[in-house]
């Protein structure tokens, strides 16, 4: 019952948070002078393109860009009927992308899947690499191995990811003939799914995974190591050791589990990161992900596209936070008890 009330309270705050975020997002997007169409009109006029100019004027009215900003906002969210009636986010209409001249869902849909693939690969890479190294360097603190992996980790943290990306691209192309950039060899772009295509995608995933992962790997190693070191000092470890538990079993059963807590709290950050992370790297590597679309949308003031992506990320953040809170409560009795005491 308490949990249910807690959930309800969280849900209400979530809705309020999202409402605030949506207003903020929309007004910030609208802050620069002009809108997508005024910029477009200026560009077209410079090219002497009279007919598109008329088309742009036409669109301007069609999409209600001639309304005041606050009205545009309400129409976008779906709290007010616009030129097309009641059709906003609340009604499930994600809006129109001017840059692509398509509904937003058509633009973002395909990119979302690939974004998830890339970032999931990176997240998995980070965990697979970072956790064993962190355990090693915590258990063998101040050994040569510890210094070595720490050193490598710092290099990974300090190297600009876009530079590393370009270097890797060049040499992978030179040595292994993997085509530059993209998520697959262009030859497979229009083909049906096949073993070769999967293989091409897998080989093109190497660079983004390594590049995106490397920086967070270093950070993760350091945090995990610190957490473990804290735990390893505690008395229950000594007790367990005194009771004759084997070193490996001891390590994984108790201190390791304790040191995972902060990472579960992190789920709230990882979820939005899966969508919006790695913008810079995606841009450099020419990955067809959401990041470059968002950047371009913000640059040309493609307001509904940018607004939708930002809202989507916001929703993921809020949901991620909820999930991590619930998971923490479920996993760690101390947190539950603490809540009850208060």
């Amino acid at each position, binding site marked *: 019952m308490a949990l249910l009330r807690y959930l309800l309270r969280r849900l209400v705050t979530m809705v309020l948070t999202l409402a605030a975020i949506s207003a903020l997002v929309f007004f910030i997007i609208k802050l*620069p*002078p*002009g809108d997508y169409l*005024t*910029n477009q009109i*200026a*560009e077209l*006029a*410079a*090219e*002497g*393109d*009279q*007919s598109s*100019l*008329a*088309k742009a*004027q*036409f*669109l301007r009215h*069609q999409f209600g860009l001639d309304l005041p900003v606050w009205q545009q906002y309400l129409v976008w969210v779906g709290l007010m009927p616009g*030129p*097309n009636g009641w059709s906003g986010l609340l009604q499930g*209409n994600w809006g*129109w992308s001017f*840059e*692509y*001249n*398509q*509904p937003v869902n*058509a*633009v973002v849909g*395909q*990119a979302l899947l690939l974004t998830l693939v890339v970032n999931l690969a990176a997240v998995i890479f980070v965990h697979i690499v970072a956790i064993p190294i962190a355990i090693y360097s915590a258990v063998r603190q101040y050994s040569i191995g510890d210094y070595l992996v720490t050193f490598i980790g710092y290099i990974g943290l300090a190297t600009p990811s876009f530079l590393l990306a*370009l270097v890797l*691209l*060049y040499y992978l*192309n030179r040595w292994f003939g993997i*085509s*530059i*950039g*993209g998520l697959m060899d*262009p030859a497979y*772009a*229009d083909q049906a799914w096949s073993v070769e295509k999967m293989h091409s995608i897998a080989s093109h995933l190497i660079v983004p995974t390594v590049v995106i992962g490397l920086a967070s790997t270093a950070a993760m190693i350091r945090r995990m190591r610190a957490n473990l070191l804290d735990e390893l000092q505690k008395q229950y470890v000594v007790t367990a050791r005194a009771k004759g538990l084997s070193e490996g079993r001891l390590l994984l059963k108790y201190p390791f589990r304790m040191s995972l807590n902060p990472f579960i709290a992190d789920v709230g950050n990882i979820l939005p990161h899966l969508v919006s992370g790695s913008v810079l790297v995606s*841009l*450099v*590597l*020419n990955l*067809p992900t959401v990041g*470059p679309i968002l950047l*371009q949308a913000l640059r040309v003031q493609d307001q509904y596209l940018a607004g939708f992506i930002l809202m989507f990320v916001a929703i993921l953040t809020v949901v991620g936070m909820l999930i991590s809170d619930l998971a923490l409560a479920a996993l760690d009795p101390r947190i539950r008890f603490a809540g009850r005491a208060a």
Partner: protein
Amino acid sequence: MKKTLRRGLASATIVIALCLAGTSARTAGTEASGSEPAGGGTGLVIIGPDATPPLPPSYQDAPMLAPLVESGKLPPVAERLPKTPLVVDLKGKGREIGRYGGDLRSLVSKARDLRLITVNTYTRLVVYDEKLKLRPDILEKVEAQDDRIFTFTLREGHRWSDGEPFTAEDFRFYFEDIANNKELSPAGPEPIFYVDGKLARFEVLDERHVRYSWDKPNPLFLPTLAQPRPVFICAPAHYLKPFHSRYAQPAKLAELAAKAKLRSWAALFNRLNDPYDNANPDMPTLNAWKIVTRAPANRFIFERNPYFHRVDPEGRQLPYIDRLFIDLATASLFAPKANAGEVDLLARGLSMYDAPVLKEGEAEHHYRTFLWPIARGSSYALYPNLTTEDPVWRALNRDQRFRVALSLAIDRRIINNAMMFGLGLEGNNTVMPESPLDDEANRTVNATYNPDLANNLLDGIGLTARNAEGVRLLPDGRELEIVVEVAGDSRDTIDVLQLITEFWRDVGVKLFIKPQEPGVLRNRSYAGRTVMVAGPGLDNAIPTAEMPPYEIAPALGENYAWPLWGEYEETRGKHGEAVDLPDAKRLLDLYHQWLETSDVGAQTRIWKEMLRLNAKNVFSIGTVTRELQPVVVSNRLHNVPEKAIFAFEPTSYFGVYRMEEFFFTE
């Protein structure tokens, strides 16, 4: 500024050899004039086919289409071609006869840039050839009576890419049902259809003949149709009619529009009627290749148009190349991808910065890097705003000595060495040596490096007071700090400005570089808020006397040197300010004179005086020009000129070099 307009069709006596040297296609002297005055003095000019090779006895088909013909899905080639196809004179141009096949790979940085394919594949009603003479392309013949009455003859049996006939109805449909439809064109027909506020009369003479006529000459009509971004005055009626309210059920249209999430039939129609952007794969075309990929995608494929109207002298229907593969890639990856041999033809998006990377991969990945000069008045120019709103700055910018002093204080040699490996051409923002209107003096006057004279001139204006830093003070006591606004994405221009900052400091002038979003910059300029803007020089730097000199007269508001004067001229005095500087007034008068004469001698005289006035007054401060454009060409790709001018205007990038004649060897 991108409008190339070519005044008059009186036989062009001046031929610009666009191809500069070497192995380039050239047939000097033997060129038969395509535009011949007929019936002496009647003013009738016929633009007909050039002295082309005779029609081949039989036609050949691309192997790619053979299976379709065999299975009966496509008629044989002879039935697909017009009765009189355009036979291209490959030998006359010094080109090889090609072979069929192959896919050409290239890159664009965003899907919207697919419109560049329409520019590069340059198929228009009339086109410029390599020597910038107008020729019929889609049309078989154009007759122009006094530049007033234009009669177009279509090719008999010409078909759209879906096999439907291309007829006078397609012109009527555009003129009556698109241009003059209030819902589709709320602003009315294109300005090109108006002369002195009067709309063109349009007549369909028969299936193959249409006529546009005005009471007064409209010398801009044909050149507008030949632009890289032309006005498309015909549309595939058979395809578009089902989406037009005059021909379809309103209820059905509303349903279609709602399905596409659009509010009205007009919105849907305008989206489907897409002759330029390559966003609608269903739209029939007359171009050499037709887009088949629907967005969004990462590779866009264009396939040969089986009804294309050009053939080689041996009767092979063009294009030679089967398909174009256009991949989306981040601009920063263009050079690495070219280096890895992942493109067959690429120019736009590459710059001289990439030259080392491009050269490095040549041998291993079997391509060549040509360096084509870019046609520009000046690659980097400064525009003191003569109509800026701040009265102190306005007075200063209008002082000819001030502008000359700023120009003399710039050491162009250093800019040339820093930006162009010393290969550039130093001087004012004026036409390039390839133009018949070029005069060496216009490039060098007021454009040498002479800081002492510059200092003297500035002292002479009365700007003698300086602050502790040695920066001169304005009459009202402010620092003489010129805020130069520049489009934030033009990295090179910002680099040049940094050099100029150093040069100007030597004469006590401070420069502050302010990068702006291009749209914001334009709006600020229109409003007269800029003091000085940096940007590229003349767009059309290889004009003939028959092209209108609007870039060097205060005629357009988009010119950073005089936005308010230009606006005044454009709006016929409704907005902006009247020109009140004697030499600028003279420029505008000359421009008006040019618009009223059809005599090439007078046009040449006007052009030359205008260029001289511009150089003398330094209305824009030029630096260096003749930047080189790297063009990556696969070793297997033939018929690409080794040396040529690269420009959007008037050559449509690869357009006038005819991409359908390029071909692959094994």
